[in-house]
């Protein structure tokens, strides 16, 4: 398969690593060569969490600026922070539900007006998909499944050669039993949002 570099960014506690791992597990199921890198340790204390999924036989675990094929942002500010990893052929998937950083709460900085920047990004990249992921995930059963909803959006683009069935199977076996239903619903919501099916 074509080589592909996917960058996941979010805030500690959002389940960013679980999302990239679910994709990795599904790839293994389908025999797609995959390599992931994850952030562990101090940054997880409410800081920025990044992970990568490298497909098609790449052996580098990291992505350089301008070289992400897909950026999946779990939080709008973090999507903006990572936007320099994209190029004009990239696809950007982002949640629009903000998580306000402490410096903003303390009044030392302002949360940026993301919508106007996103409009410019939309016209600068080859695909742009955004939604209020938290609201939609809550509707689907749990605000905690924002991560799986965004994974659904990614699958809805058809960019990753993994079948929806494999992905759903993986979700069923990897998330906590009590949350399977809410996660599957969130996943399908994400898929439909992008593919229209």
């Amino acid at each position, binding site marked *: 398969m074509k080589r592909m570099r996917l960058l996941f960014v979010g*805030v*500690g506690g959002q389940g960013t690593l679980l999302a990239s*791992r679910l994709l*990795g*597990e599904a790839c*293994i199921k389908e025999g797609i*060569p*995959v*390599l*992931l*890198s*994850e*952030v*562990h*340790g*101090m*940054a*997880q*204390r*409410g*800081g*920025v969490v990044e992970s990568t999924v490298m497909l098609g036989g*790449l*052996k*580098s*675990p*990291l*992505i*350089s*600026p*301008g*070289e992400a094929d897909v950026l999946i942002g779990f939080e709008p*500010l*973090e999507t*903006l*922070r990572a*936007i*320099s*990893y*994209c*190029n*004009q052929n*990239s696809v950007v998937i982002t949640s629009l539900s903000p998580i306000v*950083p*402490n*410096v*903003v709460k*303390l009044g*030392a*900085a*302002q*949360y*940026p*007006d993301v919508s106007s*920047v996103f409009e*410019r*990004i939309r016209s*600068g*990249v080859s695909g742009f998909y955004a939604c209020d992921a938290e609201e939609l995930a809550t509707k689907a059963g749990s605000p905690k499944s924002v991560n799986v909803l965004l994974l659904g959006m990614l699958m809805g683009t058809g960019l990753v050669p993994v079948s929806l069935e494999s992905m759903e199977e993986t979700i069923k076996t990897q998330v906590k039993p009590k949350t399977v239903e809410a996660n599957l619903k969130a996943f399908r919501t994400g898929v439909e949002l992008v593919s229209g099916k």
Partner: protein
Amino acid sequence: MHQLLKTEPCSMLLLGNEAIVRGALEAGVRVSAAYPGTPSSEIGNNLFQIHSECPELVYFEFSVNEKVAMEVAAAAAAAGLRSLTCMKHVGMNVASDAMMSLAYVGVGAGMVIVCADDPSIHSSQNEQDNRFYGKMSFLPILESSSPQEAKDLVKRAFELSEALELPVILRTTTRTAHVRGPVQLEALPDAPKGLGRFQKDARRWVLVPGTARLRRKVLLERFEQAGAISEGFEFNEIIGSGDVGIVASGVSRGYVWDALHDMDCTNQVSFLSLVMTHPLPEKTIVNFAQNKKMLLVVEELEPFLEEEIRGVLQKNGVTTPVYGKNGAYLPRMSEFNPAQVRAAIAKFLGHSLVQQGPLQLPDMPPLPMRPPALCKGCPHTETYNLIKEVVHDLGLNEDVLYPTDIGCYTLGVMPPIQMADYLICMGSSVGSSAGFSVSTHQKIISFIGDSTFFHSGVSSLINAVHQGHRFCLVILDNSTTAMTGHQPNPGIQYVPPEYKKTRVPIEQVVRGCGVQHVFKINPHKKDESLPVVREALSLNELVVIISESPCILYAKKVGGRR
């Protein structure tokens, strides 16, 4: 059942650190010990869980520090049981006292020392390159890249260790420890029977000077043998037959590989992919370099291989120029990324390179930072606020010096707390407070966590009592080693039911060290704590305040059981 104990052969998506544990289990490791430290922590965490589930399969302990862990593993290997210890790079500084002489006595059964370096300083206090420890100790070093290779290498490392009767160092970095990839599981050995037995031999195991001289000779001979093994080491590989050479190790091998494919120039280059990086295979390197126009060495941090290779070539009269950290190809500082290595190779080969440019977005608004922060409701925040209030009330604001230590509470350096003035290593809060107390008139209030106190604070506290140093040490006892993922330590009160180890209460230790003024507070009870802190800070003597309240994340995890 723990996922790493699966018996049916299958492919699993494992973290580098998990793959190391699986490799050790497949190799029949029997005793393991560690002190946690990013990026090595998941090795200990998994062994801890596996030991809790199947105590007879493998012993594991979270030792109080890396030196103790090294000694535990060393003794097991001397008694004929395969053993493993792991640590972050700076942990090896602590363990090195044991390791340097352990190399002299050697081992009976295989022993693997996993050392995790942290290029780019994601979660550490420095960026040291621990391969130099291999040089200093004469111990062999293996460097993995993928999780599959890490698992295979651990098994090979045990064999190598037994062949040489020396511990073997497996050096990982953040990007090989925290990378996840498919790993093919192989069979686990049958359940072990019985323990080992230590064969006494004072002429080997007791390093008095006469024996140490003998053993140094043995060590140098073993090192020669290691060199011979390195020549034919099956994980080392030469790929391609171009007339210029590239040498790389660790994660850099992946960057080189991808770059050569991206630029479609695999046929121009001959690529020496090194896994055993110490001792280097001299003959292999001479043969490799001899007919090349030039060499480029791609390795993170210091020019360890580069300088060795230059030395080997000079010794053998080979004049092939060697580039790497010299000549501005690659920096010494920080981990690499793919584009950086691609650019270095393009320059080396004289290719022009069109790199994909990042998206240009003029007028990007300023983006507020999101640094890691203490959790909402963290007891450390309460302790800091209490001390701050009393310091203010006593009119000491301008004059207080806050030495601090390593743990979540180090985040007290950030606004709005900003109560951290000096930090160099684990335990330095206590030793540096002693130093400041004899060199300034400033009021000294220092902070240390429970785990760090056991790791390397106790002996400095005894010193402070004996020498009569004057400072206030605040021990932030949150009943866990929080920052690295909530590992236990000897002082913890809150434990899961299956944890049956003997508790060593911090207060008893502090009093046992001879401290006269010991205070205890619960930081969440502000009204009760304020007068106690006020009394403590009014004294101009050695004072210890133990601020006791569990980490809220850990309390949730163990369900608040006591």
